[in-house]
């Protein structure tokens, strides 16, 4: 049973920030509520005030230009990202990722900002955005700041957002030439939350040597996290089976999975190995093939 709350519907972003400041610590912000309402129904989250920003069109937009990259407003739905021509043209990995988020119904109503602020370690956008070097623009009534995706997820369902701060926008920088990015999650039923997931982004030089790498792991730690050692060991290398085996091993060592009803710790580490090798190879081949 959902506990009673005072429902607040700000008309503008400024009003939303003012309400957040006024009720900080005793409120929750609701976007599409596709995760939050489940927690509220279970009595795990019991805010005194609920600030609804779902309808704020100021935060509902997708833009791309080469200089600033991709910008996605926080109230943009998953489905809007999935079907955006700009996203498809410049970041096809985001379209592929979104197609595997839950169901069409959830993607029609759930927002990217809500997904990220919810910070489920098995969420799909987190690892992909980390691999893409994305950052998040956040604000309170006083100021704005930008937090890198890599530094945003602090702990299980915990983010770097202060309790008076709102996530406004996701910024994904234009990718360097000869860069590929890939993401895959392992699920028992298609589109479930991943039991383990890996996103990889690889940039290569003219002769196909790796000049930059990002590997982000999902669902195998309290937060989405980078496999930094594995990334470093890719630099200056050329793609080969020995390298992939080494990277897979490193990434699996950097995971901090738990055992639960879905999978054991060992099986999750095994999945990270398989997925890391697969995603690095996929990203790498894309990078070589790209302009």
């Amino acid at each position: 049973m959902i506990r009673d709350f005072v429902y607040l519907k700000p008309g503008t972003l400024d009003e939303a920030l003012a309400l957040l400041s006024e009720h900080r610590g005793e409120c929750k912000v609701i976007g599409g509520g596709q995760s939050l309402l489940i927690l509220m129904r279970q009595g795990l989250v019991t805010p005194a005030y609920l600030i609804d920003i779902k309808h704020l069109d100021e935060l509902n937009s997708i833009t791309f230009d080469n200089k600033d990259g991709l910008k996605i407003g926080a109230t943009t739905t998953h489905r809007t990202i999935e079907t955006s021509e700009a996203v498809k043209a410049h970041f096809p990995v985001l379209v592929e990722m979104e197609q595997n988020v839950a169901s069409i119904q959830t993607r029609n109503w759930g927002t990217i900002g809500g997904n990220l602020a919810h910070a489920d370690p098995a969420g799909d956008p987190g690892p992909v955005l980390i691999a893409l070097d994305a950052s998040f623009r956040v604000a309170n009534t006083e100021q704005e700041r930008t937090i890198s995706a890599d530094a945003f997820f602090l702990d299980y369902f915990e983010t770097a957002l202060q309790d008076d701060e709102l996530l406004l926008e996701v910024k994904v920088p234009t990718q360097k030439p000869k860069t590929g990015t890939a993401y895959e999650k392992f699920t028992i039923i298609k589109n479930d939350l991943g039991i383990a997931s890996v996103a990889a982004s690889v940039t290569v030089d003219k002769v196909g040597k790796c000049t930059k790498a990002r590997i982000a792991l999902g669902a195998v730690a309290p937060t989405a996290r980078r496999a930094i050692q594995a990334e470093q060991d890719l630099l200056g290398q050329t793609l080969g089976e020995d390298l992939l085996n080494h990277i897979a091993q490193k990434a699996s060592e950097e995971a901090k999975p738990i055992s639960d009803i879905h999978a054991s710790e060992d099986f999750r580490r095994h999945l990270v190995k398989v997925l890391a090798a697969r995603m690095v190879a996929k990203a790498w081949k894309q990078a070589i093939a790209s302009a």
Partner: protein
Amino acid sequence: MEKRRLSMTVNGQLYEVYVNPKRLLVEVLRDELGLTGTKRGCDTVSCGACTVLINGLAVKSCSVLAMQAEDAEITTVEGLAAGGQLNPLQRSFLDHGAYQCGFCTPGMLMSATALLREKPDPTRREIQEGIHGNICRCTGYNSIIRAIAAVAQRKPGEEGQ
């Protein structure tokens, strides 16, 4: 808790109700408006039995606050039949035996309606994806897919559309 005024258009009719803001859309549709065609299944965004259209988009009404549907156009399964006549999709479900217990049927119909509006001639794969968010525990998926495909293949101008 103070009730809030909520106005929304459901199946073309404007409603104004006073609800506790914690009420979910499915609760208001069923308990306040008496539109019990929309089913409450899992209550956790999993099964899709509660699927309705909000401004043409299929959503799971068990996980939408009713207040978020303010001023929206909602279509429920009751809105499909016009003048007491089943619409072509409903007719096709009947013709293909696309239900067993019938509990998932309203949600399946609404997801299929949204799919066909977006893709009037979907492939089998697209139909499968279109109803991915709807679970039929009788597992009658093949007849449901056949029923949707049959409507999609209807030529323009044929009776019933």
